[in-house]
């Protein structure tokens, strides 16, 4: 990982959008078993740059496993993952990060005793004379990036994130991912624990990140919310994709039908 040369904010030169029609992230025929439990049974999935792709499905449909495969936490047994059309094999989470995929986990994975800038740059500190960190520079870049993303809720960049509200913390986690993601940002239930106003702010943030040309993948159980923000909806059931919709093609009832198994599984590749 290159700690010093990375530009944390602003458009990344390597983030040129892939040719039209090539998904920023594509998953084909992924399988994964935990003992006797087949979590993924040949699932396929695509997410495109500049679009929000919602991943929906009931508990146990395999959403979390799929996300872990894409984040490099879990290695699938079969199938391929492609980033901008190029097949990749991810052996650990850092590999996914290097490929330009950032994941926001449900439990946030922030260090509560550190401030926002320290969290944003954790593991990727801006350094001076090799072993010291450059906190003023990290703070400056964080403030700049938060401002750009409209994360105006963080009042004091010196306060530990433990002092923040749930929504502020979620915003810090998402903004961190947005600052580092070159191609894809994956969010696991980003609004699950939030109140109404905080949820609005987080959705606003998601749309802003999408408009920067990133492919946004988000998992949610909140179907009205999914219909509101998603450009594409991919429905999973029993470890495979059972339906996919574009914005405006579907309503809550048909979505529930798809989630609960009214449609047959997609033919496995």
């Amino acid at each position, binding site marked *: *990982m290159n700690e010093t040369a990375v530009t944390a904010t602003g458009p990344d030169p390597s983030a040129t959008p892939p040719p039209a029609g090539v998904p920023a992230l594509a998953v084909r025929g992924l399988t994964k078993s935990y003992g006797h439990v087949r979590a993924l049974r040949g699932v396929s999935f695509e997410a495109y740059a500049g679009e929000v792709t919602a991943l929906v499905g009931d508990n146990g449909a395999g959403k979390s496993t799929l996300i872990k495969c894409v984040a490099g936490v879990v290695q699938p047994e079969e199938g391929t993952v492609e980033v901008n059309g190029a097949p990749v094999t991810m052996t650990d*989470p*850092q590999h996914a*990060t290097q490929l330009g995929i950032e994941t926001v*986990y449900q*439990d*946030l*994975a*922030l*260090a*509560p*005793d*550190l401030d926002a800038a*320290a*969290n944003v740059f*954790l*593991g*990727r*500190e801006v*350094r001076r004379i090799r*072993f*010291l*960190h450059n*906190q003023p520079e990290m*703070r*400056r870049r964080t*403030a700049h990036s*938060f*401002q750009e993303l*409209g*994360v*105006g*809720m*963080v*009042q*004091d*960049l*010196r*306060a*530990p994130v*433990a*002092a*923040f*509200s749930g*929504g*502020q913390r979620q915003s810090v986690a998402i903004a961190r991912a947005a600052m580092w993601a070159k191609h894809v940002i994956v969010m696991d239930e980003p609004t699950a624990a939030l109140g109404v*106003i*905080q949820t*609005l*702010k987080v959705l*606003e943030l998601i749309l*802003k990140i999408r408009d920067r040309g990133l492919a946004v993948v988000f998992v949610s159980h909140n179907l009205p919310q999914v219909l509101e923000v998603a450009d594409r909806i991919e429905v999973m059931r029993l470890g495979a994709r059972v339906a996919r919709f574009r914005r405006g093609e579907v309503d809550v009832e048909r979505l529930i039908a798809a989630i609960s198994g009214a449609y047959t599984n997609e033919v496995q590749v």
Partner: protein
Amino acid sequence: MSATQAAPESGAPLEGAGVAVEPTESAFHRLTRSTVIVTFAALSAMIIGFAIKAPGQFDTWSNFRQLAQNVAILTVVSVGTTFVIATAGVDLSIPSGIVLGEVFAVKALALIHVHGGGTAVDVAGTDSKATYILVALCGSLAAGLALGIVNGVAVGYMRIPPLLATLGTLGAGLGCALLLQNGVNTATNALDPIPNGHAIPGVPNLILIAAVAVALGVVLLNFSVFGRHTLAIGSNAEAARRVGIKVERHLLRVYVLGGMMSGFAGFLSLSYFTTTSLAGHSTDNLKAITAVALGGTSLFGGVASIIGTLIGVWIPAVLQNGFVIIGVQPYWQDVVVGFVLILTVWADQLRRRARQR
């Protein structure tokens, strides 16, 4: 905490709001929130109190210099312990690190044969050479390194709770020291230049060494990536792991740092007391943990202060010294420190509870 919790939640605009890079609260408010300031105020109050009670006795330069010299070795150990506790760990094996440091130092000195028979252990202080001191230092650091590696592997890689891992190495290390020495202490004057010398006129070397250890500790904890990762692991090890910090390896390094500081303290102790002390130092681990906790470092990890630790080392020493001077039974020091310790940790608990809403 309250200043940040008051951040406008509903009133903030949905987008385009600015971010305050500079703290919105005054420097004074941030100071009062810090545990270090509170403990520093307590220490200052004690010093002023004793100075008023015993003018011309307590508040003399020579008394403070003596105090600083007395706490120097504990200061060195406590700097290392601060890092260990910052990871939400603990190191009980400090006494074995110190004693092994002493034993390895005399064993290393015994390898050097001097003119006219005998070894470097038996030379007079005035005949000592820099090479003898360096060899002894290397022996002490090697002992600390070995102990630190065992602790770090046990805690970091084998996932043994630090309390038990270091309890194990405490016993094992002391046992090794007794075996190596056949249970008998060795005296040596070879290291006399360390405590008796004055690299800076008027300041005994021991005090200088402790000051350097504190300064390096501050830089390492607050300004280095190593310190940042140490605090991150103590705060949320899983978060550290997910951003690519090699948590196991980092824990190993932290325990090696702690072990080597203990070994180094053994070197200092040998030089100061001119003998190994197989039966001594047995409560130095508890003294160091007390100092670190008094200084506002959280035993739950993630929050740590080297300056706080320095204050925490001084509080019991000042109390002890002051009580003796004003004619109060010095045992009161143990009583007072015990309760202050409980209050400090309670304050830390309240702080954590207040922000975890």
